């Protein structure tokens, strides 16, 4: 999909153009990402939503040059106009400071036998040569910005003394210490309690505005993505299948998969007896059929035309969708999401 990034307008901070990634599995190369293109403007938050095998985490790893050894990458990734794939040495180090990453499980990423202060200031002290005192006071200031008031005490504590929610805030503050321009957040609230999740999302949302920070927010939850992202990308089988303004994602989805994903989630607001489940299971890029729409085997709207070729990502109603029937189905998908097409047994409207 070339020529597609124009759809965004403005100068992009990060630009992916036709990115395809293959990984060696048992001696053969298997595709995990196929033709992924999108762009993020400075200060913009983009949600990246998908199920297992959709390629959402792999996209973040490709951007941060953290793919496993032996990975074959084609296509282009540009950050601030520079080609990310060819960065090396000091340039790569600087890039890593400008693009920070936070993960789902802070306990798996923070050394349990080192104090919080050591963990937080390590990059500043060793990479940027910032003196310990200055690094510490910057850490305390950032802890305050994520709602941790007693930063000095926290720096002396060990990870096991902090709750999961506090530790996630520590990881966020640490990621911000190098003054990044882009934050890659991979399911940063999935392991948290729902009230803590709301707090962390609020913090991320505020920080983004205050620091003019661009964000790629990876999640399996459409509603979480829609809550703090300007636009949301939905991925399936290693491809972008929809890009949509977040406030239209639920009310006017463009791709049948987006609509099906929204309908499959039970609602906290209303009682239904049966959910509109999607048949089959999510596919990885290498499992999905190569010469037809990758969602065709599970799609409730599938027709012969869907099995003729891989659909291209096309612009529609201000968004992008990879569905040959998109125009035909326009405005009808949301109806399905609200259960008006009767499932097996009775369903409340």
């Amino acid at each position, binding site marked *: 999909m070339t020529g597609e990034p124009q759809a965004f307008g403005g100068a992009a901070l990060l630009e992916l153009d036709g990115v395809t990634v293959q990984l060696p599995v048992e001696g053969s190369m298997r595709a995990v990402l196929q033709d992924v293109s999108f762009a993020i403007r400075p200060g913009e938050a983009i949600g990246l939503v998908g*199920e*297992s095998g959709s390629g959402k985490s792999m996209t973040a790893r490709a951007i941060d040059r953290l793919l496993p050894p032996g990975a074959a990458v084609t296509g282009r990734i540009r950050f601030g106009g520079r080609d990310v794939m060819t960065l090396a040495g000091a340039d790569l180090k600087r890039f890593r400071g400008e693009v920070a990453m936070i993960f789902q499980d802070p306990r798996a990423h923070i050394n349990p036998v080192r104090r919080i202060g050591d963990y937080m200031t390590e990059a500043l002290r060793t990479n940027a040569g910032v003196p310990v005192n200055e690094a510490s006071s910057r850490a305390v200031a950032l802890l305050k910005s994520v*709602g941790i008031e007693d930063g000095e005490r926290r720096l002396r504590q060990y990870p096991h003394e902090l709750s*999961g929610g506090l530790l996630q805030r520590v990881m966020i503050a640490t990621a911000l210490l190098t003054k990044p321009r882009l934050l890659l957040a991979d399911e940063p609230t999935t392991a948290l*309690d*729902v*009230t*803590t*999740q*709301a*707090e962390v*999302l*609020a*913090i991320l*949302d*505020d920080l983004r505005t205050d620091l003019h920070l661009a964000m790629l927010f990876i999640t*399996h*939850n459409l*509603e*979480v993505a*829609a*809550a*703090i992202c300007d636009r949301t990308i939905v991925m399936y089988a290693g491809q972008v299948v929809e890009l949509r303004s977040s*406030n239209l*994602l*639920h*009310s006017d989805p463009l791709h049948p998969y987006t609509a*099906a*994903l*929204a309908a*499959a*989630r*039970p*609602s*906290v*607001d*209303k*009682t*239904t*007896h*049966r*959910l*509109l*489940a*999607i048949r089959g*299971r*999510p596919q990885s890029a290498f499992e999905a059929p190569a010469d037809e729409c990758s969602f065709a085997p*599970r799609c409730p709207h599938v027709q012969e035309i869907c099995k003729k070729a891989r659909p291209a990502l096309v612009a529609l109603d201000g968004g992008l969708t990879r569905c040959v029937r998109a125009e035909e189905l326009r405005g009808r998908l949301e109806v399905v999401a609200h259960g008006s097409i009767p499932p097996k047994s009775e369903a409340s409207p």
Partner: protein
Amino acid sequence: MISVGPSNEPVLEVTALRKEFGTQVAVDDVTFSLPAGGSLAIVGESGSGKTTVAKMIVGLERPTAGTIRACGQDRSTPARSLRDRRRRGREVQIVFQDPYTSLDPRQTVEATIDEVLRLHHGWPADRRQQRVRDLTQLVGLDARQVRALPRSLSGGQRQRVAIARALAAEPRVLILDESVAALDVSIQAQVLNLLADIHDETQVSYLCISHDLAVVRQLTQETVVMWRGKIVERGPTAQVLDDPRDEYTRRLRASVPHPGWKPPHRAQLTGAGA
């Protein structure tokens, strides 16, 4: 084979349950009952004590005080004989969160279910075979999957095996401890529909332990909300979710993302005294 209590008695009755770990009180004065064929949710976040309650009911933890009765029989103290323990297994079964660690990696699906049938019912081989077929059909596994080892099954398929294994004992109560939390959204919907069908088709009662209010709404008629070891609110699930009375339940409900939801701003958060 199934021990049936008097018809007016609930299948599960928990009274003034308390559990202390050292000086910590994990569960404090918890009382609820589950009617035959009913469905009850225990909702709460980490540290609420909901999982400790489930563990005490299945006998993985011993209550400090209070009583647990299932099918009219007391189970507050450990089983004293193998016979007693097996009877308890036919009263209450549990499906855990993680389908990757709750199955024996060396046992086929068939053998997993057959073992439960042999231990609990002592049926001859042909009757067990028929029941394995019925159960795997009920949870939607095909013939190839029935002969497979867990490693060749996906997470959703494994969770179906765990459900079939739990149902094989023909329990009166099925505890679902975050049983769909680890599944992909599209698979979660399939398993939730399956659980709704099983509830319609069998007389089994559900005790659903969950942090996910949407899942709870889908699966249960009654809800109790736990916070720091205590029940803070109870009532019909729709009522608790639509019109929460307790301050904590309100905050919990307001934190659930839904279409159009925005996270509360930091000023509001500190105001809420979180």
